[in-house]
C-alpha cells in the first residue's frame, strides 16, 4: 500500500509535468471519512482550472488507474480550486457513501462553487 501511494503521487506529478510544465504534487493520501466515503487525494501546486479542463480525460485516466491500484472505486472525481480563483489545489477520487452520493454528488451543478466535477459514475 505504501508503495502504491508513493508510486501514484510520482506518476501523477510526472504525467502532469510532461503535459503542463512545472506542476508540484507535495502530498498524496488515501483517506477514509466519517461518513463512509473513501478515496485518494493529491494536493497540487501550479495547476490551473484551464489545464484541468483541457487535460480532463488524461487526468481522469491517471487518477482512475491510481485509485484502482489502491482498491478505491473511482466513482466521483473532482478538482478543488482555491475559492474565488483559478488555482487548482487538490485532485480527489472518491468512492462514495450513500449520503454523499445523494448530497455531495447528486446535484447536476457542482456541489460547491470551488469544486470542478471531472467525472461522475454513480
Amino acid at each position, binding site marked *: 500500500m505504501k508503495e502504491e501511494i508513493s508510486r501514484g503521487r510520482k506518476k501523477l506529478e510526472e504525467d502532469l509535468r510532461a503535459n503542463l510544465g512545472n506542476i508540484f504534487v507535495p502530498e498524496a493520501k488515501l483517506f477514509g471519512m*466519517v461518513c463512509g466515503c473513501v478515496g485518494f487525494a493529491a494536493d497540487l501546486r501550479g495547476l490551473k482550472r484551464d489545464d484541468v479542463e483541457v487535460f480532463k480525460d488524461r487526468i481522469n485516466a491517471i487518477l482512475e488507474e491510481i485509485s484502482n491500484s489502491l482498491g478505491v472505486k473511482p466513482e466521483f472525481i473532482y478538482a478543488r480550486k482555491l*475559492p*474565488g*480563483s483559478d488555482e487548482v489545489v487538490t485532485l480527489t477520487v472518491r468512492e462514495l457513501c450513500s449520503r454523499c452520493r445523494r448530497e455531495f454528488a447528486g446535484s447536476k*451543478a*457542482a*456541489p*460547491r462553487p*470551488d469544486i470542478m466535477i471531472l467525472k461522475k459514475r454513480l
Partner: protein
Amino acid sequence: MRLMVPHPGHFPALKEIVAAKEAYGLSEVEEVYMGGSPEVMGSGRGVLHAPLLDEIREQTEYAHQHRLKMNIALNSPCSGGHHLTFEGYKIFEWYFDALNNAGVDGVIVAEPYLVELLRDYPMKTIVSCLAYVDAPQRARFFEELGADVITVDTNINRHFDLLEAMVKEVNCEIKVIVNEGCLYRCPFRYSHYNLASHLSSLDQPKSPLFAPDFYFDKCINIRLRDPAQLIKSAWIRPEDMSEYESIGINSFKLSGRTKAVNWIINCMLVYSRRSYDGNLLELLDCPQMLRYMFYIDNRQLDGCIAQWKSCSKHCHECGYCDDLTGEVLTVIK
C-alpha cells in the same frame, strides 16, 4: 411565512434551487442570498465564489424571472476601518451603485456605516445577524440608521420577550435564522467572525496563521465534552416556526451558503413543509460534522419550545436542557 435561502454562488446551483422551488411549489421561498466580491469586502462565511458584476446581473435576472429576490451578503463585521477611508468610501459607493444597476434587491451588511450609506439606494438594507442586534433598543438604532430588515442576533432566538418587544419597537421587518447551531452565548463569536471577515477578504494577515481553525476546533471540542450545548443552541425546529409567527415574525432565513447545493435544497424543503423526521443535526449549518457523531431525534423535541419560550436561561438553576439531552440525544455507533 417568507423564507430566504442560501445560494453557494455558482449559477448552476441557483438553477437547481429554482428548479426545486418550482417542482415542489414552494411559494414561501421568496429570496436567495449569496456572497459578493471579496475584493470589496469579506463576509461572515468563507467565500467559495467571487461573482463578477456581470454574473450577479445575469443571476439576478434569472432569479427575477422565477419570482425570487436576489440579495448580496457583504456582512463582514470588521473591515479594519477601510470603509472609513476616502478610498474605502469610494469603493463601497461604486459597488453599491453597480449592484443596484445589476438589479439586486437587497444588500446584507453588519457595519452600521454601510447601513447608513445604503439609505441612498432603492435596494433593501438588510442588517446581518453579525450586527448582533439583541435588544429592541439596538433594533431602533439600526432602524434609524436605515435598516429595512433586521436579522436578529441568534443568541436571542429563544428570548421571546425580547423578540416580541423588538417587533413592537420597530416598523422594519424582523427576521430570524432558523438553522444556525452556534454555541449559545459563544465566547468566540465576535473573534471568530472578525477572523472570518479578514480571511474572506483581500485584507489578509501579514503572516500565515498557525491555527486558522482555533475557534472552530474549540467550538467542536466544547460540544463533544458537553453535548447539552447542542440542545441549548438557538436553532428553530421547522415545526416551531408558527410560535414566531404568533408574535409577529414571519420572515425566516436559512443559513448555509458554503454547503453543498443538495443539502441546501433539502433544508429548503424541510422548512417549507414545517415538518421533519430525523436527526436535527442534518439541518444545522454549523456544526455540520457533529451529525456523524450525535443523533438528535427531532420528533422527541415536540413541545420543548414551550419551556424555551419562558426560560430564564439560568442554566445552573434549571437543568431542563441537560435532562432533555439524555432523552433525545444518542451517540452514533
